[in-house]
């Protein structure tokens, strides 16, 4: 097990993009996906399904911490420990804000049409569905633990470029 990548950011949405970029890079370390355009650092390139899943889930949990734990008040920090492993990525997200009632999340409608399209409450569903494991321990500190694994067979390619795109330097 390698040492985790550690990042501490203020508990506000202002630092979300920074954290997302770090998580996206960590995901690419595991999926070995190439950037579409390495010359465009502003691009959000998460085409690989593994990167898509990790970044999508992380964005929702970061949102949740900034909004629910810290009530958008800009106080506190979000402590990230990101561990790229052999075919898996584990992200621990720690905060010292209000605990979140995960059991009280309303499920999405079973039948979806234009009248039942939800306008909220989708974040936890996205995170949970995208990941292989998601746990939450209310605190303080509150601790989210996200785990995503590459499908069996895929992680034998770890460390190799799987696309014909530009090589990462």
């Amino acid at each position, binding site marked *: 097990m390698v040492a985790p990548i550690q990042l501490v950011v203020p508990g506000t949405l202002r630092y979300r993009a920074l954290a997302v970029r770090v998580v996206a890079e960590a995901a690419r370390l595991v999926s070995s996906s190439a950037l579409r355009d390495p010359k465009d650092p502003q691009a959000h390139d998460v085409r690989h399904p593994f990167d898509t899943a990790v970044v999508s889930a992380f964005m929702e949990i970061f949102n949740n911490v900034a909004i629910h734990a810290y009530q958008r008040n800009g106080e506190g920090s979000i402590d990230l420990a990101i561990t790229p492993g052999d075919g898996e990525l584990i992200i621990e997200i720690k905060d010292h804000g209000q605990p979140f009632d995960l059991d009280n999340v309303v499920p999405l409608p079973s039948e*979806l049409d234009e009248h039942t399209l939800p306008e909220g409450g989708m974040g936890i569903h996205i995170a949970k569905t995208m990941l292989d494991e998601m746990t939450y321990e209310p605190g303080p500190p509150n601790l989210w633990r996200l785990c995503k694994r590459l499908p069996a067979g895929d992680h034998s390619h770890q460390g190799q470029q799987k696309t014909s795109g530009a090589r990462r330097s």
Partner: protein
Amino acid sequence: MASQLFDVVRSGSETKVSVRGSLDINNAAALGDEIDKITATKPERVLVDLSALELIDSSGVAALVKLYKGVRSIGGAVMITGARDQPLAIFKLLRMDKVFNL
């Protein structure tokens, strides 16, 4: 109206909204404000081009749902096109791809 996040072009009874980059909790409200203006014009048809959209979160999805419901509630038609990569994966996960005909 043009912004870093979206362009809105009105042509007769049709409005085209092009969204680019990341539509998320930090900027979805800006699109929401524009959606209010769009629905106020009672367009017959709204085209939403997501071909340049790279990332979306649940707040971004909520903004697009607001647009869809708002236009449909006044009898207009909404066509969403061009979703790919992470945004398309999110719409599929939420089963909205069927509703939006993606």
